[in-house]
């Protein structure tokens, strides 16, 4: 599923006058995201990231410009929006605000039931989704979605998107409020999505998470794209990071620090285990040499 934006601008027009003024929330954005890509969308708070991703499945339609999904212009084919929203699922910040059913089963089944998908198909999909997310189906299906921990709520929200069998998953700040284990579980889950060929778009301020998960970074500032390229191009451009109010990923920072100290480490490294393994090997080699 290919997402293509051509010169997209969006201006909020509802609500109070002061806000619907002169500013475009996003302005003149042209990007293309191909099937199977892993993309991070980053930028300062208020730079238009959430507004941008709502264009990917027609939750917002552009004030000017075009959004094409597999070549279909969303503004001209509003009847196809339902179908496109099933294919491109967005998991928002604090998804639990959208919960309203009494049991987790009913909550997750809500979307597919509306599509008249047979109940046994829903159940199979749900069991698969729960397994992928590390939730015990029997234990959780009859519980209330409101009595869950932060991490569990997030996973139930993801499950309710997964049962729609989307091609593209868009996550808005998925690590916010999750603890260490929760983030670890999320990382494993996102890696699984790569195995099954899904397209993944991650909006996050957590540069450690972005650096480990994606191949490509799109950076917004004041509603415009100021960078679109590989993560290595992005994270090695310190001036750009500063302009975007962002920080170097912690592991990359350590690698640069050690290189500055004269340690010969390959560059770049984004994850801790390979860095640790490299340092330990270095220490062992030196020990052997000294013996």
């Amino acid at each position, binding site marked *: 599923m290919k997402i293509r934006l051509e010169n997209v601008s969006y201006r909020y027009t509802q*609500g109070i006058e002061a806000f619907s003024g002169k500013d475009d929330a996003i302005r003149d954005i042209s990007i293309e995201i191909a099937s199977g890509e892993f993309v991070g969308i980053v930028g300062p708070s208020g730079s238009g990231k959430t507004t941008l991703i709502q264009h990917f499945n027609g939750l917002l339609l552009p004030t000017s410009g075009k959004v094409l999904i597999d070549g279909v212009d969303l503004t001209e084919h509003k009847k196809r929006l339902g179908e496109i929203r099933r294919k491109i699922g967005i998991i928002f910040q604090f998804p639990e605000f959208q919960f309203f059913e009494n049991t987790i089963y009913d909550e997750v089944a809500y979307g597919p039931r509306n599509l008249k998908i047979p109940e046994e198909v829903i159940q199979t999909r749900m069991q698969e989704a729960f397994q992928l997310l590390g939730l015990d189906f029997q234990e959780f299906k009859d519980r209330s979605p409101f009595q869950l*921990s932060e991490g569990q709520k997030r996973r139930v929200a993801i499950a309710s998107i997964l049962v729609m069998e989307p091609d593209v998953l868009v996550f808005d700040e998925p690590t916010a409020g999750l*603890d260490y*284990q929760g983030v670890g579980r999320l990382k494993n889950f996102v890696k699984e999505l790569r195995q099954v060929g899904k397209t993944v778009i991650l909006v996050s*301020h957590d540069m450690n998470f972005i650096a480990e998960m994606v191949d490509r970074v799109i950076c917004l500032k004041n509603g415009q794209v100021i960078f679109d390229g590989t993560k290595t191009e992005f994270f090695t451009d310190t001036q750009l990071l500063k302009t975007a109010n962002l920080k170097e990923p*912690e592991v990359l920072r350590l690698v640069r620090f050690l290189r500055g100290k004269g340690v010969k480490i390959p560059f770049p490294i984004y994850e*801790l285990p390979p860095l640790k393994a490299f340092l*330990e090997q270095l*220490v062992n080699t030196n020990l052997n040499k000294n013996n």
Partner: protein
Amino acid sequence: MIEVSHLKFSYPSTTSLVLDDINLQIRNDEAVSIMGANGSGKTTFSRCLNGLLLPTGGNVFVDGLNTRDKGKNLKIRSLVGMVFQNPDNQIVSTTVEREIAFGLENLGIPTLQMRQQVEKILRQFDLEKYRRRSPHYLSGGEKQLLALAAIFAMAPKYIIFDEPTSLLDPYLREKILHTIFDLQLEEGITPILITQFPEETLRTQRLIILASGKVVLDGKPAEVFENVELLDQIGISVPPLFRLKSPLMKMGLWEVP
């Protein structure tokens, strides 16, 4: 000083203890951070500190006032401010400046003084350009900034920050942390920071680790992070640097952050 003595807590109609015999003191001259996995009791604990929740057993004293004392309820809540993780739970007003004024009105601050305080806070938090905007049209990060500003406006003596930076970009996060620690220095407000970001705790003097409702570690952050294995077991994030300590020491490159 906040004094927590044999604090136990369980939610109504349950038997399991969310907090299990917590004893500690938080002094006025320290900045404290608290870490714990989801479900470790840290949010329940923080709500016991300002009397939003009352102990099932034991006591909590804020500057000598027992949170069980109903008559002292308002006083305790004005002493211990609280900034929540999700700003939508906290924001009630129709414009940014009204949101900041809201708490001050409730405290009965005279109008002129209130206006001055609102102006000061708008400047301090760089929110002047949004003053007449509806909070609902702010981004997630901007809302969090506003929620912080509204609590700061009431000038409490202690402020509990329940993961206040989780939605902020790193620059704003830095700005908020600066504001928090400046307040400690300049206005004597004691910050109590609940966070998932281990690097943030390195800026405080003391880090308390909660697991299953108990205090398992309590000390200088750089010392607490020495316990990598224990922290891994209870699901607490450790700054990557501490995981490299052993090879770095052997290479003569280890420095305590």
